[in-house]
């Protein structure tokens, strides 16, 4: 074997380019943000409408509204809308979560005015035909049934309920009974009450002229008016500590572990330190926890931790699916790595690695039209201005080992987290009870 070859060093990094964008708040209150990015002759559109409500049955109605808003308007039936979109090479998707309704699309750039016209049609004259609502209701119920047969989905539901009981954030899937009871008339009422431009956000990214895109948005959406819905936003309750909750899934060959705790929003001055602490713990493959339970012990294929930002709360989430017979040792190693983060400082080398990773992946995530559009709508929707993208590397560069230790102690300590384990209760309860308090 020849001598060991040296690994090449890095050359001078490119200076981050300033992100330039144009924006206008329309008379209706809709904020329009346009970013020119002419890599390919396409355009990305994201429309975010605040959709939070604590009303009973809102989640079911919002889900069904998202599934049926494109099934008919004053001008087009369902297939007609799909044909009009297809002629623009457009894909359009609608999604609802506890915070917002999001209508996302991409299309051939020169089709933008027509595409915005179709958005206007959906916003001002979606008709929720009875037959379409009835068909989609049945399919939504079937999709909920299919989702709930997955261990990961069951675990996500159980953890959300644990982290935000009684709050809209506590529910990741709509309740089937409430879906069954939802009518087309209720969707029309919900649309009239909440699909409003005031407080909504339209982001356009692509091979377009900002001036023309703003003008196109203003003209296409002129007819979409109405004040913001008067709904209140209620923050979720504090997370109550408790034992590890075991959810029985008889015969399961794996245990799906999910843990969650409070985290900091992106505007917080301690957020960069927490972002780096999460990476060092389990946020990428070179992290302590992933190297431990995947690369050293082979317990899990894709253990991962992440920070999640909802409008009213940020969370630290960790997930791993492990073979049933190694559930207890996997839990032990997980608690050990969390405890180590909370009680002992990280090294300078670890910090430097995640710092570079965080800076590099930020550049990567905004290098495409779609990535930039999604990042922009997520930041602006959470009240973070787009300069954050250019100023964040400098904030990451300043984080110290002591700052990481401080946030890790506060947010990653195992006693600060709640957890669920979805698996074969008969096989895992006793071994897990040897490691942690279970219920």
């Amino acid at each position, binding site marked *: 074997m020849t001598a060991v070859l040296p690994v090449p060093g890095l050359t001078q990094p490119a200076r981050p380019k300033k992100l330039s964008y144009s924006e206008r708040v329309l008379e209706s209150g809709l904020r329009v943000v346009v970013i020119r990015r002419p890599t390919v002759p396409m355009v990305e559109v994201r429309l975010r409408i605040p959709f939070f409500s604590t009303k009973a049955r809102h989640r079911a109605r919002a889900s069904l509204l998202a599934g049926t808003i494109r099934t008919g308007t004053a001008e087009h039936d*369902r297939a007609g809308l799909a044909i009009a979109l297809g002629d623009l090479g457009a894909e359009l998707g609608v999604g609802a979560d506890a915070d917002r309704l999001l209508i996302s699309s991409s299309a051939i750039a020169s089709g933008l005015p027509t595409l915005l016209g179709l958005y206007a049609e959906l916003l001002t004259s979606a008709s929720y035909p009875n037959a379409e609502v009835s068909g989609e209701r049945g399919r939504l119920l079937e999709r909920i049934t299919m989702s709930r047969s997955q261990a990961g989905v069951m675990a996500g539901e159980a953890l959300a309920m644990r982290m935000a009981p009684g709050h809209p954030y506590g529910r990741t899937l709509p309740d089937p009974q409430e879906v069954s009871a939802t009518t087309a008339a209720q969707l029309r009422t919900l649309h009239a009450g909440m699909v409003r431009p005031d407080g909504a956000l339209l982001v356009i990214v692509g091979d377009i002229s900002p001036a023309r895109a703003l003008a196109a948005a203003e003209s296409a959406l002129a007819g979409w008016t109405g004040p913001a819905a008067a709904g209140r936003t209620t923050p979720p309750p504090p997370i109550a500590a408790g034992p590890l909750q075991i959810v029985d899934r008889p015969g399961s060959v794996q245990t799906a572990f999910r843990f969650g705790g409070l985290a900091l929003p992106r505007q917080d001055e301690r957020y960069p330190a927490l972002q780096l602490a999460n990476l060092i713990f389990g946020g990428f493959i*070179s992290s302590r926890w992933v190297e431990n339970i995947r690369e050293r012990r*082979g317990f899990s294929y894709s253990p991962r931790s992440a920070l999640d930002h909802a409008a009213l709360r940020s969370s630290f989430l960790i997930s791993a699916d492990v073979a049933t017979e190694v559930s207890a040792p996997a839990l032990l190693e997980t608690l050990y790595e969390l405890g180590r983060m909370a009680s002992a400082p990280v090294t300078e080398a670890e910090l430097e690695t995640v710092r570079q990773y965080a800076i590099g992946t930020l550049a990567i995530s905004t290098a495409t039209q779609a990535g930039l559009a999604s990042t922009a709508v997520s930041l602006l929707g959470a009240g973070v201005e787009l300069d954050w993208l250019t100023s964040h590397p400098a904030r990451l560069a300043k984080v110290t080992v002591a700052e990481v230790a401080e946030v890790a102690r506060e947010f990653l300590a195992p006693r600060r987290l709640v957890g669920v384990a979805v698996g074969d209760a008969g096989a895992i309860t006793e071994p897990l009870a040897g490691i942690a308090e279970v219920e």
Partner: protein
Amino acid sequence: MPTASRIPTLPSLSFELLHHTLPNGLRVVLAPDRRSPVVAVAVNYDVGFRSEPQGRTGFAHLFEHLMFQGSANLEKLEHFHYVQSSGGTFNGSTHLDYTNYYDLLPSHALERGLFLEADRMRSPRITAENLANQIDVVKEEIRVNVLNRPYGGFPWLQLPELMYDTFPNSHNGYGGFEDLSSATVDDASSFFDSYYAPANAVLSVAGDFDPDQALEMIERHFGPIERRTKPRRPDFGEPPLSAERRTVLVDELAPMPAIAIGYRVIDPAADFAGYLTSVVLAEILSNGDASRLHRALVQDKGLVTDISAYLGTFGDPLEERDPTRLTITAHYADRAGTEKVIAAVDAELDRLATEGTEPGELRRAGVQLAATISHELDNVLNRCLEFGKFQLIFDDAELILRLPELLATITDDDIRAAARALAPTSRAVVELVPGAAK
């Protein structure tokens, strides 16, 4: 509805590619584009799970895992560490006919990325310890994606067994646990020697770099790797099906039945334009609310929850050689509806074969496919992977840039013929029956 004059057209894609071949046979494709400070490096090897030996199901994928476990130069975990501490991401994936490895990096880490790919092409560290660890990791991957999941691996793991008669085409590409457990370091070394020769690979680089500098780095890092013989690729061809094949599979975790209908399609190497017709046909059948199968089976008849038609094992229509297939899958509420679902699919295919497309339908399918390609190529990493894959599979990286114009030449008669070819006598049907519903 937009009038003809308002229907936009997609400008052609302009990427300049540079080609080079090193003396050791490694083919190189460069796609410089300096607009974002990001660079992607990919190596595509001409071996996938179709080529793995009998008794070694899942070996191509297991071997992919081993390629991340260090080298003569690097300890275990160092490969990950060097990429990630440069601010980059990496991964690899195993397909029917190829395996790829890739890194997406800030452009100032280009040389490091090239070094790391050259490093494992030269001398991966294959040890008994790494092998045992990665067998465990792969088993967890199979548990999470197949054994512990409703509809796990359906239908890519089950349809080939019914549809094909020879081991290379019909076996389970994830692998059986017994085969995985019995894999040895010698197996891995001989697999590497046979298939991971430079002459059996394509290196592609896309994004923010100077082509002359990049080529110099490529020669420095990949040039010294010894030339080995490119393995001869066997003929994997099988005769077409002459009668319908059916099987029933019980899925203990699934709450609802599902079906997969597979049809052999034309050999892309023999008749690429003919093959593209099947790609357009799949688009017409199931992309979007105006597509044939969605309208008929989901909206009008309410027979299924969802339905999709796609080419290739994993839905990328342009990544496989012959034999490959068109698959239609659907989930539905009631097992008693199985025959109705099949009959409704047949009726739609028959209608398309006899009446042809509606005005605008063919053009729209072409535009949608072209827009999808544009969208894909906006991403530096996808661009790098696509150019490399097209060079490897079709010996023509630029082919992807010509697809929009090729799609535009497909006629209504072509679509009718392609729909007619999806006959009941030439299909394989896997019916998935839920065990959970018992």
